[in-house]
């Protein structure tokens, strides 16, 4: 009986989540791109790396988004390009989220010298313009998708660190933490079971907001040719290539990659906004 009640409650909760228009629209956008990436082989009409028509054709029924200067189908390149974008962003956000959260928990809970050192390092990274740092790291590591992901991850670790550390500091002084200590619960358990669950809601907001940020940074790195090598389809790099043709009136080569980047970033930003309205009663 209690199991059915529990699943009913979960369902109710899900309804509340999906009733939120921000979350719903954000999820639809993001999932659209995710499915695009997964099903790229099925939905894309042409090969993304071969010339399939005349170069520089405007959008038509044959080439939905036109063709580029090498005669490749822009639509197919957009579809395949979502793969590399989502992969790099997912790896980067997962890495920075995990590292930032763990360090934030440790630093906030233990305090002392370790906290000062970690905070100092994180603040130094944070003080640096993130894009410049990402580019510098990417160049230093050498152009490759995984190195780009690492560079982005490093840049965003402080975002998580600062947020988690701040929350831990305030939760740490709550009486129920003192109570847990007085009951003989070990510190690791206190951090994982009594503090971390209180941080997760805010973490979700930062997570999705940060994904939006990471997309823009990834696009910038790609734009500079620091992720994949041509001819692999990649939104940022296609954007770079397209810039020379815009003045000649061939807008489609640049517009569609740019639109995709923006749309995906907006999708994550919408989720973030929705989650933050859900968890803060004042905004509801």
């Amino acid at each position, binding site marked *: 009986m209690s199991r059915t009640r529990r699943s009913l409650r979960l369902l109710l909760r899900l309804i509340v989540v999906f009733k939120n228009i921000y979350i719903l629209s954000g999820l639809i956008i993001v999932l659209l791109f995710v499915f695009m990436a997964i099903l790229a082989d099925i939905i894309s009409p042409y090969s993304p790396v071969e010339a399939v028509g005349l170069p520089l054709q405007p959008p038509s029924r044959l080439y939905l988004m036109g063709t580029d200067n090498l005669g490749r189908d822009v639509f197919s390149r957009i579809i395949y390009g979502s793969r590399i974008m989502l992969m790099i962003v997912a790896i980067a956000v997962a890495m920075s989220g995990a590292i930032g959260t763990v360090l934030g928990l440790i630093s906030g809970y233990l*305090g002392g010298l370790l906290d000062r050192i970690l905070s100092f390092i994180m603040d130094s990274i944070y003080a640096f313009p993130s894009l410049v740092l990402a580019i510098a790291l990417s160049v230093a590591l050498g152009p490759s998708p995984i190195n780009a992901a690492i560079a982005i991850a490093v840049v965003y670790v402080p975002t998580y660190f600062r947020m988690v550390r701040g929350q831990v500091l305030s939760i740490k002084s709550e009486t129920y933490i*003192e109570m847990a200590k007085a009951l*003989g619960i070990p510190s690791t358990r206190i951090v994982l079971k*009594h503090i971390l669950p209180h941080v997760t809601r805010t973490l979700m907001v930062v997570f999705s907001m940060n994904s939006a940020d990471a997309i823009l940074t990834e696009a910038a790195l790609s734009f500079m040719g620091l992720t994949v090598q041509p001819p692999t389809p990649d939104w940022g790099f296609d954007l770079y290539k397209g810039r020379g043709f815009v003045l000649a009136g061939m807008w489609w080569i640049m517009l569609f990659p740019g639109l995709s980047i923006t749309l995906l970033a907006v999708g994550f930003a919408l989720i973030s906004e929705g989650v933050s309205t859900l968890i803060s009663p004042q905004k509801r």
Partner: protein
Amino acid sequence: MEILLVNDLWVKYFTLSGVVSAVSGVSFKLRRGEMLAIVGESGSGKSTLGLALLNMVPKPGRIIRGEVVFNGVDILKLDPREIRKIRGSRISVVFQDPFTTLDPLRRIVDQFEEFLIEHGVEKVKVRTIVREYLEAVGLSERIMYSYPHQLSGGQKQRVSIAMAIALNPEVIIADEPTTALDVVVQKQIMDLIDSIKEKYKSSIILITHDLALALERADTIMVMYGGYVMEYAEKSELFSNMRHPYTRALFEALPRVLQRDLPRSLPGYPPDLRNPPPGCIFHPRCEFAVEKCKRELPPLIEVSRNHFVSCHRVGELL
């Protein structure tokens, strides 16, 4: 036979604006089955003392000297793992504000079980123990599956007490257990604590600012002021023979049923412990203070058997 022996305990907070001496040279002993009330106003160091007994003084506080001997072992010398075994199972704490002592995101039963399993109770027995002790504090089994916000303050305090007694600890430190509750619930909770003391033969340290409550319930009373012990005696002795001006002032400040005048209040404020007055810490507010009080710290003198007073003029004033 003493279960707990505190010897010359000093706790200081090293804050940025100066060193605060919160507990200064406190000594006492707690017998098995005894209820000791530590009475003092806000900032007298009584709560810090309670935390120090479990070596749990929060940063930037530090225990700088003294011993807390529990069953013949100095707790302050134990490593973190050993002291964790004692916390909650042999010495437990009931905190002041029941509204914040339970984790709001977890059900009562989850918090309770986590604590029991941590102390090595077998998983199969856990649920039974939770039921048993919730019942022992007068709660129905149903609240096990509630979240803290679904309970009233009194119910939450009962949950805390149930957890505090579940492993049958030798010492229970109750830090103002009734302060946040209304009077009717206060009485119920104090009755509960009394019955626990009878039933489980636990020793209880009742930390309170309420001298009346202490006189009503405790066996022994220790009056603290500014981190120092002012007077320490058995209840009957203290009641009939209050020797310290501060204890008397506290007593006179109690409202009385058969008295038409307002209770007398003690003028002035508690001392700034960053910058304590020289000599006797109480002298600025003491109506009997003489020159000596401003210069010399009065020792704790045993005026009669087991009755200790820290006052220069204890011999002259009766």
